[in-house]
């Protein structure tokens, strides 16, 4: 396994969480009456 893999994984997971999270927040806002 290449060096510093854990840092890379953490960065990619956090990015996905922020962008997916924001997409879900926007979607939920549209469901509100």
């Amino acid at each position, binding site marked *: 396994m*290449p060096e510093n893999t854990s840092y890379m994984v*953490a960065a*990619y997971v956090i990015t996905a969480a*922020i962008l997916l999270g924001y*997409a879900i927040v*926007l979607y939920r806002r549209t469901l509100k009456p």
Partner: protein
Amino acid sequence: MRLLKTGRWITIVGLALLAAVYVRALAFTPVERFQGAAQKIYYIHVPSALCAMLAMGLVGVAGILYLLIKDPRFDRFGEASAEVGTAFSLVMLTTGPIWAKPIWGTWWTWDARLTLTLFLFLLFLGYLLLRGAVTDPGLRARYSAVLGICGLALLPFIHLSVYLFRTLHPQPIVLKPSAPSLPGEMLVTLLFSFLVFTILYVGFVTQRYALSLLREQAEQHA
């Protein structure tokens, strides 16, 4: 509402392509010799930073246009772009320190580039707080436009900070007057990632704009 559905579809396409960026960056782009896997953070850190700056730039342009034309659509767009820019600057400010730790040996340093990007994030937050604090729509739009223009003025300083000051942050290797000093495979991955982040920006802003429009229409009917 058609605009909302369009924004939602653009976002779904953007998220699917983000998965493709991950596959391309992690499996089909070579590992850098000195930094190891940490260098692959580059493919999400740089596009998110560029999109955060694009978002603030457009907030500023919308602010100028609002002050000139007084069209509420520019104010609505500025609000949408600022909120989306906050999300992208959050990505930039979390992936940056995670990359810095193994390479620089520290999570954070108060050098010019890092401090100015933190300032950009705080400016986004300030913009959103300002909008929440001012109830009069006309005043809110005018104050927000001025703050957005201040944000636009900050962008050249962020870009040039690595040339003007001694910083740990590296100088641009793509956005510079000479040819990009990046191997072809890495450059393709970076450009693909930037395209996908831009698609996500468009999708998010379209949805956020449509939500503001719906809210205003509901308030008018109430």
